[in-house]
């Protein structure tokens, strides 16, 4: 199927509701605040945006969702939130492993072996594979 130019349709792109973009430096404090409000941590999402990573942290309060959005340069260490939400350890390991985001101090760190095995691909979710990966 031939690729068509982006955003060509008449409609503007749909946006996620209830997103707040924050600075990396504020991230921990904001997550802490969410924790104190009793929000349930849903998950985190990572996107490979060229030179940057985009990270979403999804929270739920009852049925309502809210999201924190962070943009970081590739290579910048991202602090783990698993110290605040223990249950984030799985998704953080996954992001670290599949995207190569340097997340520091995960409570249970699988060191890149949560899902992937030696001899297989590394950081497979990146759009453009780094030359070291197989």
């Amino acid at each position, binding site marked *: 199927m031939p690729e068509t130019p982006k955003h060509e349709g008449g409609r503007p792109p749909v946006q996620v509701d209830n997103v707040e973009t924050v600075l990396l430096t504020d991230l921990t404090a904001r997550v802490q605040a969410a924790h104190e409000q009793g929000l349930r941590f849903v998950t985190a999402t990572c996107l490979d945006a060229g030179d940057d990573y985009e990270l979403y942290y999804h929270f739920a309060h009852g049925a309502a969702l809210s999201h924190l959005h962070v943009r970081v340069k590739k290579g910048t260490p991202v602090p783990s939130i698993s110290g605040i939400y223990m249950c984030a350890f799985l998704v953080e390991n996954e992001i670290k492993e599949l995207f190569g985001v340097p997340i520091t101090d995960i409570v*249970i*760190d*699988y*060191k890149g*072996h*949560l899902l992937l*095995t*030696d001899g297989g691909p590394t950081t497979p979710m990146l759009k453009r594979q780094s030359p070291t990966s197989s």
Partner: protein
Amino acid sequence: MGELAWLGRLNVGGLAGVLILAPVLTGLVVFLVRTKWSRKGIVTGTGWILSLGALALFGFGAVRRDTVSFMPPQIPGISWDAVVTGLDLLLIVGFVAIGFLLRRPIVAALAVLQAGLVLWVELSHSVRLEHPPLYVDWLAIIMVMIVSVIGSIVAVYGLPYMKEHEKHLGIPDTASKRPRFFLTILIFLGAMNGLVLSDNLLWLFFFWEVTTLCSFLLIRHDETADAEANAFRALWINMAGGVLFAGGLVVLSHAVGAVSIQRIVESRASVVTNPIALVGLGLLCVAGFTKAAQMPFHSWLLGAMVAPTPVSALLHSSTMVKAGVYLIARLAPAFHDTAMSDMIAVAGGFTFAAAALLAIGQTNAKKVLAYSTISNLGLIIACAGLNSPLSMAAAVMLIIFHAISKALLFMAAGVVEHGIWSRDIEDMQGLVSRMPLTTLTMVIGILSMLLPPFGVLIAKLAAIEASVRMPAALLLLVVGSTLTVMFWTKWTGRLLTADPSVVFPRIEHLHSMYFVPLLMLTIGALGFSLMVVPLLTQLIVPAVAQYYRSVQSDVTTLVQFDNVLGVPWALVFGVLALAVLWPLLYFRGPRTQRTGVYLCGEQVETAATTTFRTAAETAVPVTIRGHYFERAVGETVHARWMMTVSIAALVLMLGAAFLQR
């Protein structure tokens, strides 16, 4: 037996003298002549002397076919009675001295108490001392054989052991305490022989206290704070037992007017109707309880574990604790068919079950062995309390088989300890691939303690069968034997847990002085079990018959077809041996593929085969800890009620003396 008739003419007094005094003398030589070779030679030589002496005594008994009361060799100008009394007092002075030296006034106090009671007996006119003080019957012969043969084996095994022990502790040869050690051991053996050959309770008391002293010295041998504390505990508990013994003597000498066991047994008719006399016997039995480390007195034997292993082997198998059960068994005909006898059975049965329960929670191999000893002695005492020909046959069998197996086990445990420098059962996991030979002996030792067709179990079955007429004891025995199976099985399981990677284990090198004693006892355990029927008919039945002569019991029913002793045990042995052999031959060679264990598919093939891959792709070895159920059967969990119950049992036992049947 024509050619052996000369045995019957042996001077039994002289023989007894050799059995009692030879080790003392050779011990002194070892102490004084401090060369390596002389020590080896003399200890081994003494072993031979004792064993041959015991064998000669056996021959004597076999030819004579009757009991003999006899005097020690007459030496003009010497009254042996006076000598024994003198030595006894000397011993008590020694205890007082120890009490002062160690600043343990209680020891001195107990010693003084003992002296007073003994003098009371000596000086009271009612006591007739003309009865020969020594006595040989089958029971005595069996005991002498055990003490002399097994004791000697342990002593010989102690030679290399103590050498390594001192090396381990970093004691230079010049400061070696081994001469003193072997002196004590040998005196111990002599005293035990004296103890079982004595008929006069005053003599018996003397030897009794010598064993107390020797065990104290042996437990204290390493002179660490721990050793001191535990030695002191052993000392005061046993001396307290001694006080009870002496107290019992006082009562008996007044009530029966005799201090000869034979006299007392012969006057059973008047004893069982006289509560005071029964209390006297009861006190002696309680003394036996202390020495046999029965609850509530068992703590000293557990503490004695700090001593080097040969000491444990000695204390548990052939000496010391056996003195306790021996005394009770010896006196049993005197209180045959009394309520007190029943209570003794219950008290013994209680210790049997309770100690087995506590053994389940122990990780320390020597402690398990200790609890097992306590438990088995409880069983023997229960048998004595059941006081029937069958139960007594069981008791005698237990004394024999337990001595062999326990000596074997302790010695094997000692070798293991020197192999892995640990006493922890958990550290023994997979020992079979590290020390196959020792493990084999150990496993045989363990299995011989709990499974058919080994002697201990046959005896245990006989004991259960004998206990049917006493439901309380029966229940305790059933419960106890089930618990026994549990802790032994768990331990054996640890030993046999092999890493599948080791296909043909290297046989470890064993010092010949380790190997030969182990081998002898292993053969003993197997051989005697194999020959349990002849052993029974030729030795134990006559012994029991002799024993219950005064009670007029029918012992011929003992070996009949429908009782445990009528099973063709040799045949069973053969069938089982076959079942062991064919798979060894069948599952061999290239036909059988050796595989790794099932680890849910994540077994790491290249490394040791019990490693698995796990989180973060790390390889982790499987570790499996045995279950000890500490929360259910830990010592502390049960300490209080067990103490209470066992003390109550003893009180009831003495109280039962006043219950006329």
